[in-house]
């Protein structure tokens, strides 16, 4: 039995550490990878808790589908728009972590001081085995006592599909955003957002554009000419 506890603790530790990593990574792709790690650990814990079917669903739905979706969306978002690279909000972090710690402390106290009492049900290891295994039990229950919720869930999923189609359709009458990018950047390294202290450097370089439809600029550094439309506008106004 000690091994079980040990494995559980190990899995828990990894899950927590990767969860912390997820919220601290600046790059969202890294966060996503950390989240995958957490979810895999959770799935493993599910198996330990005799929820094999759920573990499979967890892997398939979360790790497989949702995370892939997230990554797809991440790819569609312009990396320069990622806000964490811009100005930080230290107070927000302090308050966030503070509140988290207090709540964690309170809940820990609650967990340690309270016991949850309930009548044990029939689905212990033997019961589940007798019924033919975890999946069979879930299946039987779902389609006997939970028919209505299952139908409702189906409806929700259908609605979500339609909603996603609606949200994802192209806006024809949408005017081009005034914030469209005007300066092209060729990145030598991975993408970075423009930081305020880079703008003087850009101005100092005073590079003239070549004729043609595209701006082609050679940069020595990834951040050298990175700027945004707003700064362009500001520049236009000052001139």
């Amino acid at each position, binding site marked *: 039995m000690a091994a079980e506890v040990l494995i559980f603790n190990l899995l828990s530790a990894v899950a927590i550490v990767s969860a912390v990593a997820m919220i601290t990574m600046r790059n969202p792709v890294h966060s996503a990878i950390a989240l995958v790690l957490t979810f895999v650990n959770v799935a493993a814990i599910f198996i330990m808790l005799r929820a094999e079917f759920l573990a499979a669903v967890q892997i398939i739905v979360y790790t497989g589908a949702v995370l892939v979706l997230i990554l797809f969306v991440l790819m569609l978002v312009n990396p320069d728009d990622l806000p964490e690279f811009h100005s930080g909000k230290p107070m*927000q972090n302090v*308050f*966030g972590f503070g*509140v*988290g710690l*207090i*709540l964690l402390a*309170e809940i820990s106290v*609650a967990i340690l001081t309270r016991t949850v009492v309930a009548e044990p049900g029939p689905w212990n290891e033997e019961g589940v085995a007798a019924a033919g295994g975890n999946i069979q039990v879930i299946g039987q229950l779902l389609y006997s006592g939970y028919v209505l919720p299952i139908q409702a869930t189906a409806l929700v999923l259908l609605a979500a599909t339609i909603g996603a189609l609606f949200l994802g359709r192209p806006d024809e009458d949408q005017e081009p955003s005034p914030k469209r990018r005007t300066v092209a950047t060729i990145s030598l390294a991975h993408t970075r957002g423009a930081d305020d202290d880079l703008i003087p450097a850009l101005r100092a370089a005073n590079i003239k554009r070549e004729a043609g439809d595209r701006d082609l600029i050679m940069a020595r550094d990834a951040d050298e000419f990175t700027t945004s439309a707003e700064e362009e506008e500001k520049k236009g106004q000052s001139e």
Partner: protein
Amino acid sequence: MSSWLFLIPLLPLAAAVINFILGRWFLQHASQWLATLAVAGSFILSIPVFLEIVSDEQAISQHLYTWIPAGDFDIPVTLFVDQLTATMLLVVTGVGLLVHIYSIGYMHGDPGIYRFFSYLPLFVFSMLMLVMANNFLVLFVFWEAVGLCSFLLIGFWYRRRSAASAAKKAFIVNRVGDFGFGIGILLIFVTYGTIEYAGVFDMVGDASQTTITVIALLLFTGAIGKSAQLPLFVWLPDAMEGPTPVSALIHAATMVTAGIFVLARAYPVVSQSADAMMVISIVGIATAFVAATIAVTQYDIKKVVAYSTVSQLGFMAFAIGTGAWIAAIFHLVTHAFFKGLLFLGAGSVIHGMHEEQDMRKMGGLKKYMPITYWTFLIGAAANAGIIPLAGFWSKDEIILGTWLYDHTVIMVIAFITAFFTSLYMFRAVFMTFHGEERFNPDEVHPHESPRIMTIPLIVLAVFAATIGFIGFPPEDGWFHHFLINAFPGLTLPDVAWSTIFIFAGISTLIALSGLFIQYMAYVKKSISPAGIAGLLGPLYKLAANRWYLDEIYDVLIVRPLVAFSMFLWRFVDAQVIDGTVNGVATLVTYTSQQWRKAQTGLIANYVFAIALGAIIIIGAFMIFGSNLFQ
């Protein structure tokens, strides 16, 4: 006979309603004949009723229907005729009929004639119902109804601002009196549990002396308003804005005497309270004196007669106050004739002078309108108390009464007032009919009135001259013996002939002296009225300005009340109450706007708030355990 009693008031009512609804489009001038016939019918029907009362000495009544059946407050509409009512019936229908006939001539050509001949019979109806009521509430109803008719008729020429204001003033001032009268009725009901005359009069003694006094005074308050006593007589002179026949019928002969009638009607109550009688006599004599002094200074012929009316009403009031009940009613009757005559005569003068009312622009009219002159002279002499005309007998009896019932001070003032009466009456006669012609003969062509107007004058003049003999000899006449039945418990005083002769002598002397002074002043010009006025200085000014009563009311009551109302509206309503209401609304809006700032739109803040909430709730559970909600 009692079964068709209801016809007496019904006929004028029917005429009034028909004329009002159909008059404008269908009847037009025919309305005058309908109204006159209806009143004539009432008059003819009243005669047998009067004769029956004379012969049987029994009151008759006819129950019509129950008006208000509110639990123990059960008010019937019952017609009731006793000696007092019968007298009033004849006066009202008789004078009313003559005024109707006169009005046919006077109102000739007025486009609103159908209205006039609708309101006038309506007034006759109301007045008849007033005198025939058998309980105080029905009396009050028609008390108000005659006020309505008075309002409508004073404001008959409603396009004149002055007429409209006078009508309003008359109604409102009367309502001040009605305020007291109404409370009096409430008090009667609460005290006696009924407001029927018979029931109340049977139980008068059951109430305390104070209550009786208060009731009597409250009833007198009504009379102060309606019978134009001090301090509420201000409406009556203004009421002269109405057509002159209206002044004759309503504001001289009948309606204004309703107050006196009510006091006489409530004789069993009023006579029980010496204090109330005292107040009535003081108010009455004061009214008589003040009005007489004002009358001497007026130049408008109708105003002179109007103030004379007020003064004579004062005579009636203090007659009642001193205990000369029958004398008061006697004077009421004679006054109805001679004052009606005076008004109609004045109307005839005005008619002949093309609507001129100022005596300073008249003079020497005797030769242009002889019938008017002679009838007016009879009326004036009767009013002034020249023997043997009607006014002499009744007024002399009133003054005699003050002596008989030991009111010496009142007697003295009454004699002075009688002197003033003679002064103003003959002043009017001489200024109007004698002396030089002060009008512009190019513009005004005085002429005698048509026969339809002079015949009522002559009839009234005959009555004004002779009606006094129904009360002859004083305190022992036929009228006294007839009316004594309406005043149970009243005894006719035994007066020595010598006393009668002394009083008659003094009265005649006073009246003749007034005549002589005015003759000297306005015909012989040996006395200058302006000189006397200058001599009296402020006293003359006081009288000429009607003792500043209107101004006093304006400053003391009207303006403060309007200002207070303004304050209530602009401050209490708009600032305090609405301010509170709007203040609550503003507070809510302000609080909400402050809270709205919490809606930053930042998800992080919302989550933060949720987390804080969770911390607080969980923390509370940690600290207080599950006892938190108990």
